[in-house]
């Protein structure tokens, strides 16, 4: 199992599309930085294929005033949780 890290908004180019292409059925995806925009209910449909394996970083949601506005299907983790995700994954890939 691998962890894919996306720091770009769904709007801002092809990072999300490319990450999704490269994921196997076990892989997880973590949204950080501007990537957390993808956790908004209006954006989250793009991640329907990986339901249950989509995460977003709490700090970055909070800084942007998006905590509480995010879709409930997104699992929120703090920085410790981010480290845990990298422990559990054999490898990580970043899409930016």
């Amino acid at each position: 199992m691998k962890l894919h890290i996306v720091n770009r908004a769904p709007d801002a180019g092809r990072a999300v599309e490319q990450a999704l292409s490269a994921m196997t059925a076990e892989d997880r995806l973590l949204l950080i930085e501007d990537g957390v925009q993808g956790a908004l209910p209006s954006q989250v449909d793009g991640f329907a294929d990986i339901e249950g394996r989509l995460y977003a970083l709490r700090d970055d949601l909070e800084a942007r005033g998006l905590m509480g506005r995010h879709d409930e299907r997104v699992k929120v983790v703090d920085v410790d949780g981010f480290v845990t995700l990298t422990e559990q994954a054999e490898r990580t890939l970043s899409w930016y």
Partner: protein
Amino acid sequence: MRYAILLMGAPYSDQASHSALRFARAVLARGHQLETVFFYHDGVYNAARLAAPPQDEPHLVDGWITLNAEHGVALQVCIAAALRRGLMDEREASRHGKSGYSVEAPFELTGLGQLVDLGLNCDRLVTFAS
């Protein structure tokens, strides 16, 4: 576990450097070893020794230096990417006939091969980029 970080974003201009520093601290706090932060692409600007951000903003260069001093994290800067961007240590400056220098210890200029080694030999390599 043994971690390494690859950082490829300019400081201040975007969040990548801050994310990397935040992640580095969390890795160490959980008892892992953080072998190296490797600076490539615009990440090399993190090694500019003269940075003087406004006092109410986090000082990235100091953050990296503290990681090195307290946890022995190596701060390796890709030499080719650095030279292209006007960053060099005293030795490179004299080799290029320039006076002054912009990178100093604990940042060290090194080759790109080091990145491949880190990626293959550490348990985890995590990339932060702009």
